[in-house]
């Protein structure tokens, strides 16, 4: 798969989730079971730099979501 397709898969998957707007890196790894996690995190970080995704952090843990989706500053999603 090329990088553009990977990005599309990520965006479509996130858009498909109705109740959640914030995700752990692990959720992205699960979209690419064949890849090394560190490749996936590089891709995610690239998408943040491009303005497609954004970080959301408690200061302790970081979560990632579609840019502009969901609450911008609120309590952390507590489920695992």
């Amino acid at each position: 798969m090329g990088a553009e397709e990977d990005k599309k898969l990520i965006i479509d998957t996130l858009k498909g989730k109705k109740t959640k707007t914030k995700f752990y890196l692990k959720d992205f790894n699960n979209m690419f079971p064949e890849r090394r996690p560190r490749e996936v995190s590089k891709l995610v970080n690239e998408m943040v730099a491009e303005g497609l995704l954004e970080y959301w952090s408690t200061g302790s843990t970081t979560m990632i979501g579609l840019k502009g989706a969901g609450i911008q500053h609120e309590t952390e999603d507590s489920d695992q």
Partner: protein
Amino acid sequence: MVKRKTPMLDELEKGKWPSFVSDIKQEAESRNETDVDLQTPKEVCDDLLDLLELSFKDREGHWKHGGIAGVFGYGGGVIGRYCDRPEEFPAVKDFHTLRVNQPSSYFYRTEFLRKICELWERRGSGLTNMHGSTGDIILLGTTTPQIEEIFWELTHNLKQDLGGSGSNLRTPNCCIGKSRCEFACYDTQEACRNLTMEFQDELHRPSFGYKFKMKFDGCPNGCVASIARSDMSVIGTWKDDIRIDQEAVQAYVAGEFKPDGGGFAGRDWGPFDIVKEVIDLCPTHCMAWNGKKLGINNRECNRCMHCINTMPRALRIGKETGASILFGAKAPILEGAQLSTLTIPFMRMEEPFNEIKELVGKIWDWWSEEGRSRERLGELMQRKGFAKFLDVCGVKADPRMIKEPRSNPYIFWKEADIPGGWERDIKDFRKRHQK
């Protein structure tokens, strides 16, 4: 000036201890009088105090936990904090914290400190924490529009970068090491800086399921407490013998040199008693004193540093130095606090530090692959077992990794490890042993 009414906070100014309430009040006064061109609300410290008073009254926090605050290209270093009563406390509506990567061992010029204080008075709250428990310079409380401005000034004028937060590599931290300390078994500053530069990407962008910390102590005295505070604790040690200067030992015994370099001198402990204060306190009982000569059975010494700390002019660390590497310390949340576990008994610590970098790479790969979200390395090690962790690191189990035989039995033999192997019928086994 507004007359502040914070009776509950004022309680925290009583007694002979330093008080963060007094500190914040002092900054509040100073902001009222300053002629600095403040880019953040003048009343930020006043609102902070009033909000905390309200929290004490309500017995509820008034801060939301987290947010998207950050600088472009970075996913760490800024900790977003927003107040949940913004109308009443507009000056602390957003009150973000910046973690700034500290210089190794905290060597500053006063010029730098003045500049950073000036910057933070102008673009922040004026409140700092030197240093945060992560080791960073902590700049407490600024508004969202100021973040990029501060980042620009920090990196261009002060030549200082942001540190780590969130699910990143956290700012590495080291003891004062060879710059001042004769006990340093390797150059902690060099190691800390080298690995900080190597792992810039992991430091600035979230790469893991949770935080990862590395700290560098030059010797087992552990001045940065790496064994308790970091997922990877690098602790200086030596392989050969403690160097003994018998004449200097005599001088300590004769009272010519003060033990502990004159520390613990506040009370009269009587004359120095080498047997009581050194020999009998050696945790492995590997020292002997016959009234003339000090002997150490170095094979049994576990490098606790006690004898060296007590008689530094007579005893010195060995010459063949490097570090022990331990993994998995963490604070509570799950299970309870945990110290790091010895994994690599000895590694040379020299530029370009390739061996330790390779090891870190293997561990990060495993942790990213197997770790759950928000699972620290130490928790994963516990869940999967230490034998598995040793496999990942590519090292063999070693008696130095356990406290005593049989009480921490984490070694599981594999058939391939045993000459001749073995055969076992699992169904037969299960007849006698429930799952």
